[in-house]
């Protein structure tokens, strides 16, 4: 089934049907951004070809059509992550903006001097630097949860770090380096026990598994459209409405405004109060199409397909001598992200070599410099899989790594 599903799927992604350096492209940089199915690209184009107008205030027909689509996607997103209401769905530029807004609006309003903010060593800079800045501004302390030796979050360390002083716990649902899935529901319980709120960076989980913000019992959840087949420039912040109602807006102007006088202004309620200026309307339409596409397959099916893919590729990679893999080796505990290093070779050299073989991976610190330090590496190579990748893609990766080793064999040791 897995194979068949994939053969059909690939035809939906014209970009994959190309040669790079004379080899068929194998795109394994999905943790950075994903490719878009024809359905998404065409939804955006069709919006511009037929319905484009500014939303909300228009009285004319195109404006009504655009507004209906724009607000309709809010419902769709709410359903997609099982939010209780579409009025808790805020459009943002992406995960980074979403997390920054939580830190700058909720954080600056409610974090007091002496409070603690707890994150983990595996956070992406987008879920780290905003908290650093907040801690500095508000006189709070930023604390880090340790990792176990296989890269899993150390829940015992979490229990120690989260105390009655903790105001905010913020952790990635899935790591963009280690591929590990974190126990956010468990963390949320601990956080709530101490009166803290639980923020979840869903950038690397939402594309790959069914999200249920109510079952996780968390307070804020952020993700990016471009990592789940939607256009660039659109992301989501979900928050509990009790919290959203208490938060000040951050960008002023346009539809977020209720009433302006010369020296005073009142704002709409959430989600609109956060959406200053003309939004990325076509991006929203594309996000709706991407969710439709993913749901037409089914998030559970996507998750199990990716797990089976990883289960078949990991053992092949492990056979390569000198190859070290970061994160847990049990496919049940991880997503389709595999970070690795080849002994004696810098990941940049590996990535360049793989690119010559048509295999697109990433090399670097993956916006997780503290994690690199924690792992005691300068950088890693990272192959990240998605739904449209096949077992053959995994084989191409393995072969390309072997060829790379061979090429450099006589070079540096």
């Amino acid at each position, binding site marked *: 089934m897995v194979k068949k599903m994939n053969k059909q799927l690939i035809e939906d992604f014209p970009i994959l049907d190309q040669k790079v350096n004379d080899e068929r492209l194998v795109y394994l940089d999905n943790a950075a951004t994903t490719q878009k199915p024809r359905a998404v690209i065409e939804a955006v184009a069709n919006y511009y070809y037929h319905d484009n107008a500014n939303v909300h205030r228009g009285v004319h027909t195109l404006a009504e059509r655009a507004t209906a689509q724009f607000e309709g996607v809010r419902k769709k997103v709410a359903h997609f992550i099982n939010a209780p209401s579409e009025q808790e769905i805020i459009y943002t530029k992406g995960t980074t903006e979403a997390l920054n807004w939580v830190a700058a609006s909720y954080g600056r309003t409610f974090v007091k001097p002496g409070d603690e903010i707890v994150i983990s060593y595996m956070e992406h800079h987008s879920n780290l630097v905003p908290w650093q800045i907040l801690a500095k501004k508000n006189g709070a302390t930023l604390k880090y949860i340790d990792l176990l030796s296989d890269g899993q979050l150390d829940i015992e360390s979490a229990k120690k770090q989260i105390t009655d002083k903790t105001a905010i716990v913020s952790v990635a649902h899935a790591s963009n380096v280690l591929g590990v899935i974190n126990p956010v529901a468990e963390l949320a319980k601990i956080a709530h026990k101490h009166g803290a709120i639980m923020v979840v960076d869903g950038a690397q989980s939402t594309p790959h598994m069914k999200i249920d913000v109510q079952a996780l019992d968390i307070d804020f959840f952020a993700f990016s459209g471009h990592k789940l087949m939607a256009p660039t420039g659109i992301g989501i912040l979900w928050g509990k409405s009790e919290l959203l109602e208490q938060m000040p807006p951050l960008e002023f102007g346009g539809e977020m405004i209720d009433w302006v006088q010369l020296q005073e202004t009142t704002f709409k309620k959430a989600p609109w109060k956060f959406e200053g200026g003309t939004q990325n309307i076509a991006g929203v339409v594309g996000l709706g199409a991407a969710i439709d596409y993913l749901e037409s397959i089914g998030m559970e099916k996507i998750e199990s397909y990716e797990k089976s893919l990883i289960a078949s590729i990991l053992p092949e990679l492990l056979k390569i001598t000198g190859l070290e893999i970061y994160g847990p080796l049990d496919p049940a505990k991880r997503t389709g992200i595999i970070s690795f290093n080849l002994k004696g070779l810098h990941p940049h*050299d590996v990535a360049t070599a793989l690119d010559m073989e048509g295999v697109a991976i990433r090399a*670097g610190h993956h916006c997780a410099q503290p994690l690199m330090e924690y792992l005691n590496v300068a*950088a890693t190579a990272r192959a990240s899989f998605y739904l449209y990748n096949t077992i053959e893609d995994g084989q191409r990766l393995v072969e390309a790594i072997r*060829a790379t080793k061979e*090429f450099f064999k006589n070079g540096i040791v």
Partner: protein
Amino acid sequence: MGLSRLDNLYRQMILEHAAHPHHHGTLENAEHQLELRNPTCGDVLTVQVAMKEDKVSDVAFSGSGCTISQASASMMTDEVIGKTPAQIEQMVMTFSKMVTGDSKDNIDDILGDAAILEGVAQFPARIKCAMLAWKAIYQVIENSNDESSIGLMRHDEL
């Protein structure tokens, strides 16, 4: 085609420099020093310089990095010894133009062995790696009035 094209980048001499870099280590009599980071990949490179009669009398580099950045650093150290700041400035500019594909004018004359890094121009993602050491020596020379300085490499500069 595959890996065969890699030969344009990883010429034998480059691999040898990377495996056995010249002037790798630290200087005892360093007068000027600069640490540069390549934020893209996490590489850190420290360059130390000693001057005599307004010429570079000795140079060393330390730090880890990819094949390209290590080889480039090694070649740079070979080439700058005995040169004046003005000459080094010209070398850095020439090197920069070469690896960005702007111009190959006089690269052999001005850059010596380092001209072999010409192939980097076909690998835009690796330009930063090749530039790191040259950028460092440039900044050392520019700041050579200060006793010692520390700076950050930014991918957008040069």
